[in-house]
């Protein structure tokens, strides 16, 4: 390997290291492993409903063009029980309970997002 080759190889190595370090720091800040308290239903980016994670229930979310997703909230976590989307990726996603986590159903433009407890009252008024 020539000196130039080595320098170019090192540049790639440094880039990889930088991205990984940056991501790990970002993760340490973002993923606080904090249990969420509410689950917010977003259709096309608009919050249409929110539920308390501590109350067990099953709700059917209806999206445009006859889309239906059945969300079950159980013991502080939630999962997509059923859906009539073509890919069913949202159903396979399994349980989520940490703040920031989400279940996405791309075909239905639907996001189920776990949030903390702080803004509960504000959102309740808006709703």
């Amino acid at each position, binding site marked *: 390997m020539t000196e130039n*080759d080595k320098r*170019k*190889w090192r*540049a*790639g*190595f440094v*880039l*990889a290291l930088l*991205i*990984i370090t*940056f*991501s*790990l720091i*970002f*993760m340490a800040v*973002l993923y606080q492993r904090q249990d969420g308290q509410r689950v917010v239903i*977003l259709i*096309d*980016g*608009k919050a249409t409903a929110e539920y308390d994670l501590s109350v067990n229930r099953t709700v059917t979310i209806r999206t445009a063009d006859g889309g239906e997703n059945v969300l079950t909230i159980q013991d502080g976590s939630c999962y997509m029980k059923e859906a009539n989307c*073509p*890919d069913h*990726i*949202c159903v*396979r*996603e399994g349980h989520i309970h940490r703040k*920031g*986590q*989400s279940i*996405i*159903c*791309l*075909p239905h*433009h*639907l*996001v189920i*997002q776990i949030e903390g407890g702080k803004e509960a009252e504000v959102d309740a008024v808006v709703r």
Partner: protein
Amino acid sequence: MKLKVSQMGLLLSVALILSYIESVIPFNFGIPGMKLGLPNLAVVLTLYLFGWKEALLINLTRILLSGFMFGNMAGILFSLAGAAVSFLSMLAARKTGIFDLCGVSICGGVTHNIGQILIAVYVVRTAGIMYYLPVLLIAGVITGALNGMIAMRTEPYLKKMQRRA
């Protein structure tokens, strides 16, 4: 000329096989429909062996063919978004002259995942799913480095064949 055609055919089949493999590997870091970006191996190799036009041709052909064979329209949309961002970044990274093939491939791997998460954000119009970005960046570095290392080992052999012909 004959050799170029056969090498391009080989690279396209590698790209298709890798597209198939990534379509059966579940890559579930929160964003549905995401792909690992394995076919970038063939794209980056083509870029270094022949140039950007040939690489673009391989890239587009494999997206369309694999999309119709192992995917659906949504899959093609995701692949296109990832591939477009990744391809342009690789061209730019190569142009700077700072990186070798492996570094260029890492740029491609990382930006491939950025492109895919951006299209997902666009589809559901919810920026909150960027939550999964850090994991995807790390995954991009790993795939990019892996692709790059394999491509770097392979490139001299294909080059040698070209010189001999």
